[in-house]
């Protein structure tokens, strides 16, 4: 399981300074809920950890290695936002999508039986085994998110990054998805960072909460966040650091 170090990171979209000297230490095995208002830079920060966006300044390290290092690639599971847009009409079954996580960079050798075993295991973990032969585009939003989590897990990642995993799904499904992520974090010990607007649900399962608003406005245990801040209507406007 990987730890994540974010040190003095800055980033701007043109003249719009999104992140300003932001620093954050995420311990291996933590489940961090990244919350904050729209445009605060949460998704940008998540993409930096994933290696998709380079910071203008500062350093992002995963497992002690700077994120640009190729050796990290393949060890980070990434589930982006709005999967339903991509998958509509995409001709692939659930098991084909999950199997993509096994040898996506073409460097590993996995035999057919081994692959089937891992895919079955991953689908059991996310409760989707019965739907393995269904086309992914025919699933509901919540089911698709489960499949994407299974695909990311199939690569045996050290860290799982999720961008708004419950956007576009109903209340109950959102609760179930966060419940699943909490189970994966507890049972597999995998480090999870989830960007979410769904504060009520995510802080229930996360071990830590990071509130991002240009910088860090809160970082600590989720129990402390729930106790002291969750009900404050203007919480996000605070700038602790």
């Amino acid at each position, binding site marked *: 399981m990987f730890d994540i170090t974010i040190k003095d990171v800055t980033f701007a979209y043109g003249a719009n300074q999104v992140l300003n000297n932001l620093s954050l230490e995420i311990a291996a095995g933590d489940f961090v809920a990244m919350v904050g208002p729209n445009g605060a830079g949460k998704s940008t920060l998540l993409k930096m950890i994933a290696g998709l966006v380079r910071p203008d300044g500062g350093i992002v390290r995963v497992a002690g290695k700077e994120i640009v290092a190729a050796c990290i*690639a393949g060890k980070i599971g*990434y589930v982006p936002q709005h999967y339903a847009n991509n998958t509509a009409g*995409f*001709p*692939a079954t659930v098991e084909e999508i999950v199997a*993509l996580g096994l040898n*996506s960079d073409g460097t590993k050798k996995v035999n057919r039986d081994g692959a089937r075993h891992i895919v079955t295991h991953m689908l059991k973990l996310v409760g989707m085994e019965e739907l393995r032969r269904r086309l992914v585009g025919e699933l509901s939003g919540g089911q698709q998110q489960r499949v994407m989590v299974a695909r990311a897990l199939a690569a045996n990642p050290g860290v799982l990054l999720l961008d708004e995993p419950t956007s576009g799904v109903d209340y109950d499904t959102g609760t179930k998805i966060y419940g699943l992520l909490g189970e994966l974090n507890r049972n597999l010990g995998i480090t999870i960072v989830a960007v979410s607007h769904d504060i009520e649900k995510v802080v229930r399962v996360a071990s830590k909460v990071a509130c991002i608003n240009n910088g860090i406005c809160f970082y600590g245990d989720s129990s402390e966040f729930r106790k002291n801040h969750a009900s404050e209507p203007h919480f996000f406007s605070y700038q602790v650091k």
Partner: protein
Amino acid sequence: MEVLQYDFMQRALIAGLITAIVCPLIGIFVVVRRQAMIGDGLGHIAFAGVMGGYVLGVYPTAVAALVTMLGAGAIEFVRHRHARHADTALAIFFYTGLALAVIFSSMARVPGNGIIGVLFGSILTVTSSDIWLIAGSAIIVLAVMHYYFGRLFLMSFDEDVARVAGINTALVGTIFSMMAALVVVVGMRVVGILLVSSLMIIPVAAAHLMRRGFKATLAWSVVFSIISVLGGLILSFQLDIAPGGTIVITAVAIYLILLSGLGNAISKLLKTARAAGRSADKKNY
């Protein structure tokens, strides 16, 4: 069969079969990556290559292969470097290809049916040299696509996820575009540059109606493509009409038949048969 008695028909069938296999292999990625017009665009560049070959007095198909692959690489480079203006840049590439083709055609001594053959295909005039080039190109395409299949699959599904997984998406995208360029040149002799894109797209669109997984959709695409090429070729021979157009119309007919609901019916039948097979296996076990 009467059609097989003629050497030109034997060569036509070989060239057609090879084309029928490689076109959907590229086409399925073209369709899911929403690049359906790339085949047409590369066709314009290939046209310039063929005419350039006539001007230089060098084997035109080989020149077309080289020029189209270089063009494909350049297009992919622009697409990555200037993503916001990629659409306009692609259009400029394609129109440049077409303009050069027109200029070269005015400079070259093109044999009788030359330009029409390039535009609409001339499968019945395929030579042994063409067969070697088509077969060689197809082997390269098959080998490269086999090697990069998983990476292209993930890239087509989500390019960001592919990058996070460690895939060099710029490199794989460029290689894929070059393979598409080779297939355009392969298909050019069979259906012509104006119709080559149709053999990449229509069989895949038809297979898509079967609502199966990725590999199954690819397999059905190849089946429909082979039926289109062989059926179209035989039909054109019997009716004495243009083979390129007949092949494409056959593919369209297959698509329309499946669109009418037959695809769903076949798909359900196959699923039922497979489910029955699985339950029988469990009982035996």
